């Protein structure tokens, strides 16, 4: 097989590390969709996102009409003095939007950032929490 064919098959078999956000944005620069886990416990929903390289102050979490939007901006200033010699991944901002149902107590949403991982805790409204029904 020629080198060209090999290159194509190799690219096809490689899963993208980051997927680019296809929508329109007003800020210049590439946007990526952060890898996200959503898990549910009895009391809350936990949304966990990988947003490496984003500082706490550059994260914007907005809740509007049950839409929860996370916008994380990368600070490119440390890269300005660096001259790239070998690159394997692209650097860009992160954005993702979720629709939150009414069972979430939107006033008590909690966010935490550790080691490039953003954790959002969305507590369920008391009426949506599971109850054990006792038989009388």
């Amino acid at each position, binding site marked *: 097989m020629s080198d060209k064919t090999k290159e194509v098959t190799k690219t096809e078999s490689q899963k993208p590390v980051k997927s680019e956000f296809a929508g329109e944005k007003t800020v210049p620069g590439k946007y990526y969709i952060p890898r996200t886990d959503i898990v549910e416990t009895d009391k809350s929903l936990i949304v966990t996102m990988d947003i490496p390289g984003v500082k706490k102050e550059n994260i914007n979490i907005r809740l509007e009409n049950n839409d929860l939007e996370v916008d994380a901006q990368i600070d490119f200033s440390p890269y300005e003095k660096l001259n790239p010699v070998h*690159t*394997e991944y692209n650097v860009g901002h992160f954005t993702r939007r979720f629709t939150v149902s009414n069972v979430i107590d939107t006033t008590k949403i909690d966010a935490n950032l550790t080691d490039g991982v953003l954790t959002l805790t969305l507590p369920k409204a008391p009426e949506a929490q599971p109850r054990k029904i006792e038989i009388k």
Partner: protein
Amino acid sequence: MFPLSSTFDTLLALQEALDLAQNGGFFERSTTSPGIYPPVNIFERSGDLVLVAELPGVKKKDLNIEVKGNTVRLAGERTIDYGKDISYHRVERNSTKFDRTLKLPYNIESDKVKAEYKDGLLVVSLSRAESDKPKQITIQ
């Protein structure tokens, strides 16, 4: 006649197997695998190399960086544990163990290596070994 798609699949599988054998580190004289994860970006800053890797959710104590001669080894693991009694709605992140060895164009001064891990970003500064630096020759 074979359906075209299955023929391609067979060829692709063969190609992958060959790639794996060739690039899997088996034929290299190193003790650790070259690997492809984590992806790294390498920059140059006033003659030194700066290696940057995105490693969100990896704890500092689980990261292991070794430098020897002209090779850098990045090893570590990321564990994701949500505890018991949970149900998953979406799983895109995974627990991984990684081990990658990179060969650099020159020897590294191992005493001067600086590694910093912040906000899920690993930054390793590597300066060229004094013994490996080119010498300016003055014409007499």
